[in-house]
C-alpha cells in the first residue's frame, strides 16, 4: 500500500506499472482502519483473526465494497 499526493499520481503509477487501479482511501480513513486492525497486535491474547472478525473490522471501518470481500 503506497502513499500518494493525489488521484493523478495514482493513475500515473498504475499506468507506468501496467496495473489496474485498486481501492483508494484517504489518510484519515486509513488511520481509523489502522486503529481497528492493529490496536491489539501487541497483546498476548492476540492469536490472529477468523473470517467473521475480519468482516466485522471491515464493516466498522466502512469498507463494504467487493474489494474487501473476505
Amino acid at each position, binding site marked *: 500500500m503506497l502513499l500518494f499526493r493525489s488521484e493523478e499520481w495514482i493513475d500515473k503509477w498504475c499506468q507506468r506499472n501496467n*496495473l489496474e487501479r*485498486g481501492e483508494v482511501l484517504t489518510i484519515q480513513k486509513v*488511520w481509523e482502519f*489502522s486503529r481497528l486492525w492493529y490496536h491489539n497486535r501487541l497483546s498476548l491474547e492476540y492469536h490472529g483473526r477468523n473470517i467473521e472478525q*475480519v468482516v466485522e473490522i471491515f464493516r466498522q471501518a466502512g469498507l463494504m465494497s467487493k*474489494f474487501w470481500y473476505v
Partner: protein
Amino acid sequence: MAKESLLWQVRHFVYAHFAENTRPPSVDEAAAHFDISMEEAREYYKELHKSHAIFLEADKDINNLAIRMAWPFSAVPTDFKVHANGKTYFANCAWDMLGVPAALHSDAVIEAVCTESNETVQLVVKNGQIMESRSKAKRTIHQLLVHFPLPFSRWYDDLVFT
C-alpha cells in the same frame, strides 16, 4: 507448556522485542528467551509464518531464518519511518505506518515519501488524531491518499508487493 500455548507466546515475544528494540529477534534470541533449542525456535517461526502471524525471509541458508515483517513493523528500511516512544521504526507500507502508533498506542511523527511525486511528508499522530505537520504547497492532509492495489482476497499472494 503446551506447544500451541508456546507458539503464541513466541509471537508475543517477537512483537514485544520489535516494539522495544525496533528490530525482530533472531532465532537464537527466541531460543534463548524460551530456553528451547534453535531447531524448536525455528519451527515456531515457520509455524507463525504459515499462519500469517509473521513473514519470514529465508536466505540461502535454511538455518538462518529472518523475520522480514511482523505487521505493522518492517525489519528492513522502507519509505515509511515512524518515530514513537523515543524510537524509530520502519513500517511495511502506507497503511502500516499508521499501524505502528495504533499498535503501540502512542503518539508518533511519521516521515513518508509519496509515490511518483517523491514528495516527503511528515505526519503527526497526537492524542488519537492525525495531522500533517508541514506542507510547502499548503495542501491539507485530506489530499493524502493510500492506494490498496490488490483486493483483500489477494493480499497474501505476494506480501512484499501488497
